[in-house]
């Protein structure tokens, strides 16, 4: 009988309970990333970098060799690792405070140099680990502990669209934004990961996947309503799709 689904727990993921909140998108995204690497048969030749934020402990769950990076610096760290092991799969896994705020320089310059690793960018429009402060990606009007009446354009500007920004850089060869709010979108997210890893393995340049994800705890929503909020509020401002791909695949 043909297996229709093979769990990656015990293979790509460790047999451990995670520290993530109920309804958080990290669990889904961890699984998709590790399933994709396991399907390539490359778990033993992969090195990951975890960020500062809730997923600093991603290495507890992702069953590959990994290190932690200082806040925002994961793309610089991944650059160093990839230069030592150019034939390994190397990735950084970062949130929006880490990547789009304190680490904007490192991500832009890694893309500019066309570093041949992949960044998985989890955008939930808020600082999670520190308790719900405004991020550069927080939506206009969205309440946070540092914007209690909602983000205002006059004070904090408009939320930044990272995928669109990176797509303007020549060295960024694959850039896609996906969401993990519905089963259909989760399936599409996995395809994006596989395409990004393929670009990395072919050494074409920098590859990047942005995931719109939920943070029920800091949004003050139930897990189900948080997923609805992604569809109703985040996707209209952060459109899904491929912003950059190798010429021959267009």
């Amino acid at each position, binding site marked *: 009988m043909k297996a229709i689904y093979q769990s990656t727990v015990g293979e790509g993921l460790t047999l451990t309970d995670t520290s993530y909140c109920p309804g958080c998108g990290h669990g889904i995204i961890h699984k998709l990333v590790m399933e994709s690497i396991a399907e390539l048969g490359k778990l033993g030749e992969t090195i990951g*970098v975890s960020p500062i934020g809730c997923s600093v402990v991603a290495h507890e769950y992702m069953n*590959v*060799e990994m290190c932690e*990076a200082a806040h925002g610096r994961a793309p610089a*760290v991944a650059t*160093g*690792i990839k*230069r030592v092991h150019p034939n390994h799969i190397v990735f950084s896994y970062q949130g929006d405070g880490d990547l789009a705020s304190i680490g904007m320089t490192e991500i832009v310059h890694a893309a500019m140099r066309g570093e041949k690793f992949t960044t998985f960018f989890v955008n939930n429009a808020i600082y999670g680990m520190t308790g719900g402060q405004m991020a550069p990606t927080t939506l206009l009007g969205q309440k946070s502990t540092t914007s209690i009446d909602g983000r205002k354009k006059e004070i904090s500007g408009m939320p930044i669209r990272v995928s669109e920004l990176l797509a303007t850089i020549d060295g960024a060869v694959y850039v896609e934004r996906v969401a993990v709010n519905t089963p259909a979108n989760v399936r599409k997210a996995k395809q994006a990961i596989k395409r990004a890893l393929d670009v990395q393995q072919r050494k074409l340049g920098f590859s990047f996947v942005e995931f719109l994800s939920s943070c029920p705890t800091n949004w003050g929503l139930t897990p189900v309503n948080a997923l609805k909020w992604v569809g109703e509020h985040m996707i209209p401002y952060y459109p899904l799709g491929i912003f950059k791909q190798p010429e021959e695949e267009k």
Partner: protein
Amino acid sequence: MAERVLMKGNEAFAEAAIRGGCRFYVGYPITPQSEIPEFMSHELPKRGGTFIQAESELGTINMSYGIGCAGGNVFISSASPGIALMQEGFSFLCSAEVPLVAMNVSRSGAGIGGIQPGQCDYNQVTRGGGNGDYHIPVFAPSTMQDAVDIIYESFEIADRYRNPVMILADGMMGQMMEPVVLPEPKTLYKDEADIANYKPWALTGSKGKANRNRIKSYHAHPAELEQYIDYLYEKYMRMEKELQRAESYHTDDAEIVFVAYGSMARIVREVLEVLRKDGIKAGMIRPISLWPFPTAPFEALNPEVTKVVISAEMSKGQMIPDIRLALKDRIPVKLFSRTGGIIPSTEEIVAFVKTLRKELK
């Protein structure tokens, strides 16, 4: 093969690093050390190494952390304000036990200060500007040969303790030319595939290993973190004992003992000759390791013979607390200092000593 050549300081530092086992160099332009990245950019790839120009000093220290995690032997260089930007990274590398060799070709003043030579990074490099309980061994050469020899050795020191090592040279040393004997190139690991044998803790992929490697700085549980801090503290105490280095010149009969390192020690060596010709018994202790600060030569001083110790610095007395601790305050300590990038002349130091002797009588 060892060879005697005439080289500019910064280029000799880079050449010594390559011969000592550096396979990766990361840097960012900053005066007065920019010849190091320039030299590395064309020389290192020819010798099978990798040069990366980073977007900032934050980029430099974090790329080199990644290289270190992956088991590559990495060298970085910068100058005072650039080293200040890297402090987050130094703290991180120490906590994650990742080796690195860093060179600080220091300049003068706080903030932007000036681009002329200075020694006012003493506190920055010996105390560290990063968070947490950590230490970095700091070596301060005073001749080009000292510099070449200690850079050459530092890769093995860094790997032995799994900790960054810093070389502190001032801008004068970076810019001057001097003959040096370059040691024979060493190979610390053959190729990428050999890293796992040389550094079994490094991230090389879990394939074929019983347990996957992880390199961490974060510890969520206080008891676990305290245990880890104690483990590192024990290592720092071992380093403190094993890495103290100094040279003493004519200290046995000296009524005046200078303490000087780096370029200042070169000048004081001349001062000693002039003073001795004038019948003034002067000596010098030259700390080679600034952390750990070498205590033995200070313990050997006899207060019956040595009446005063002079800390000669291109900074404002930053070394004095270490000297007083090493002396256990048995002998008074005075400061001779020039700053702002001004290198003192032999004559002005001689005059300072003669005035001081009159005051003491």
